């Protein structure tokens, strides 16, 4: 079969080209690793904060994970910051806290700001908790007194009723005895219910995270989009350049001097490079999940499927664009035009918040659909039904571009 001959050739050529293979398979892992460390919560950064005459309770609650605290004797913030090269200086007059930032390093400024703020909130909570505790203690003692009272009362009623019943039975007055028996039951029932309500007073709060966890990072939330982007970028580049090579070395027109169909060449390319795209996807996804312990909520198969479709779109787009390039250099020139803008519409910036004309642009970008689907699967566990529309649109892109490519090859052979 002619198409399979093309597929085999693509595979052989790729396997011989170790550099390209390495680029395709290792570069995404390398970049992912870099990004992982770059976007990790930065715990090593330390801001220095000078304090003067501040209540110990306040100093105690300032988070010292990112802020080191130094005590000084002067209230002159400016002078002390300059003298000791501090990032901030905190002073207190009665209930009023005053903070002065050096602000030579905005990151450190925000570190102090955050620590101080969370510290103050913590402090407020603490006071609130102590107040509540006191109130509860008071309430509980009241309740206990009340309970004792009710119990005593019930006891009295019960004994009273019991003697009444005995008297009534002795008298042979059955009706009255039954009525009293009912009252007795009611009296005992109230006691038990009052003990129940006394129990349910302590509340606990437990937090649940629907998406991600409390330590979700930037890396994790944008990982799906980048997964899609890498596949898109490398497949676009490699397929585009290789078809361009076929064109410039004359092998394409030589191929078309055989009885092969134009569609068989394109399909051979799709299958051949699609195969490598699958390997790349599997490698990258498995690597990020196992090494970085990324939590994948949805199905890994849907991730593979979406990435494969993205790769096929990139493949057909690369082949299509390559017809407008006359050299590899010109092919590279299309990357900032065609590929890079797509990353902006892949979820890094929320598309909903964009100007309407930008939103329109987003909707002609394959990566917008692919990254949306990937993000939905990875972080929200979306199923095939949820991302079906996105996948169909990707298929649409692929079909249209494939048609264009097949027609475009008429330049080299009229049939």
């Amino acid at each position, binding site marked *: 079969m*002619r198409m399979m*001959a093309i597929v*085999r*050739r693509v595979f*052989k*050529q790729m396997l*011989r*080209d170790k550099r390209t293979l390495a680029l395709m398979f290792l570069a995404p892992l390398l970049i992912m690793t870099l990004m992982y460390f770059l976007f990790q919560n930065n715990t090593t950064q330390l801001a220095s904060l000078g304090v003067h005459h501040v209540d110990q309770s306040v100093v105690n609650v300032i988070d010292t994970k990112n802020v080191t605290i130094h005590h000084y004797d002067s209230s002159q913030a400016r002078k002390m910051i300059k003298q000791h090269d501090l990032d901030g200086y905190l002073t207190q007059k009665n209930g009023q806290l005053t903070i002065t930032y050096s602000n030579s390093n905005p990151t450190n400024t925000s570190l102090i700001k955050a620590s101080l703020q969370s510290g103050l909130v913590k402090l407020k909570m603490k006071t609130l908790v102590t107040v509540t505790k006191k109130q509860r203690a008071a309430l509980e003692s009241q309740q206990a007194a009340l309970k004792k009272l009710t119990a005593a009362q019930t006891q009295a009623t019960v004994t009273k009723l019991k003697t009444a019943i005995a008297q009534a039975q002795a008298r042979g007055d059955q009706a009255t005895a039954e009525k009293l028996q009912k009252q007795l039951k009611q009296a005992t029932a109230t006691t038990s219910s009052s003990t129940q309500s006394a129990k349910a007073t302590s509340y606990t709060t437990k937090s649940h995270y629907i998406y991600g966890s409390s330590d979700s990072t930037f890396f994790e939330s944008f990982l799906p989009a980048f997964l899609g982007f890498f596949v898109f970028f490398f497949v676009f580049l490699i397929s585009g350049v290789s078809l361009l090579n076929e064109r410039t*070395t*004359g*092998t394409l*027109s*030589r*191929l*078309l*001097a*055989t*009885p*092969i*169909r134009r569609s068989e060449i394109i399909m051979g390319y799709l299958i051949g490079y699609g195969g490598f795209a699958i390997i790349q996807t599997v490698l990258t996804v498995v690597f990020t999940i196992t090494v970085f312990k990324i939590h994948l909520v949805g199905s890994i198969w849907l991730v593979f499927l979406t990435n494969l479709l993205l790769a096929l779109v990139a493949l057909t787009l690369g082949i299509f664009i390559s017809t407008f390039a006359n050299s590899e250099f010109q092919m590279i020139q299309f990357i900032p035009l065609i590929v890079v803008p797509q990353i902006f519409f892949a979820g890094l910036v929320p598309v909903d918040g964009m100007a309407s004309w930008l939103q329109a642009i987003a909707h002609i970008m394959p990566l917008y659909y692919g990254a949306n689907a990937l993000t939905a699967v990875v972080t929200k566990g979306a199923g095939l039904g949820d991302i079906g529309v996105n996948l169909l649109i990707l298929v649409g892109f692929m079909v249209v571009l494939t048609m264009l490519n097949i027609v475009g090859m008429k330049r*080299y*052979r*009229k*049939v």
Partner: protein
Amino acid sequence: MATDYVIAKQVSKHFGHQQVLNQIDLTLPAGMIYGLIGPSGAGKTTLIKSILGMEAVDSGTVKVMDTVMPNRAVMAQVGYMAQSDALYETLTARENLTLFGQLMSVPKIKLAQMIDYAAGLVDLTSQLDKRVSGYSGGMKRRLSLAIALIQDPQLLILDEPTVGIDPELRQQIWTELNKLKDTGKSMLVTTHVMDEAERCDYLMLIRHGIALAEGTPAALKQQYAVDTIEQVFLKAGRMQDANDGNR
């Protein structure tokens, strides 16, 4: 009457304002080596591509194997060697031959045998498993010729097949081409080498897209009253320029 493998009638073609082919008629019967000669840029390659259906013609018709071109299926019966080598450099010669053999629908069981045959013809048998990127210019040319022969076609269209090939091997190749001719195959060959032109059964001299002269080498020499094809070439050219000047 023997069948005609190629019948081109009144083929015209232009690129931009340039008339590259001007009402060319060409008939190639079975069992003939047909030579196309003419200066660089005369339109030889364009004529060949028009015959193969790879170039759209403005007017005129081309039939190959009794089929109106362009036609995809007929390609399997034509062995084509392009003017510039179009080979997959990262693959070995054998892999190149295998690929084109598969594309030309050579049966699987015959493929190995055909590869040996084609490689033997161009003396590449010992180099078959070397990557093409390590080939010399002449070796690449020979591999291109072997690819054209891979499906043992009835019609060979060879665009300057012997460029960069040493004299000894060139002799050998022409001997083989003559053997193929004797089995009823036909060849359409372009060349700039005049002693090769002398070996053709029939010649067409193209200049500025016009078929200036055609006939057997002997008839042409007689017609122009010269001793060699080279002199025919030069004399016909001068006469064309003189005619253009008179107009």
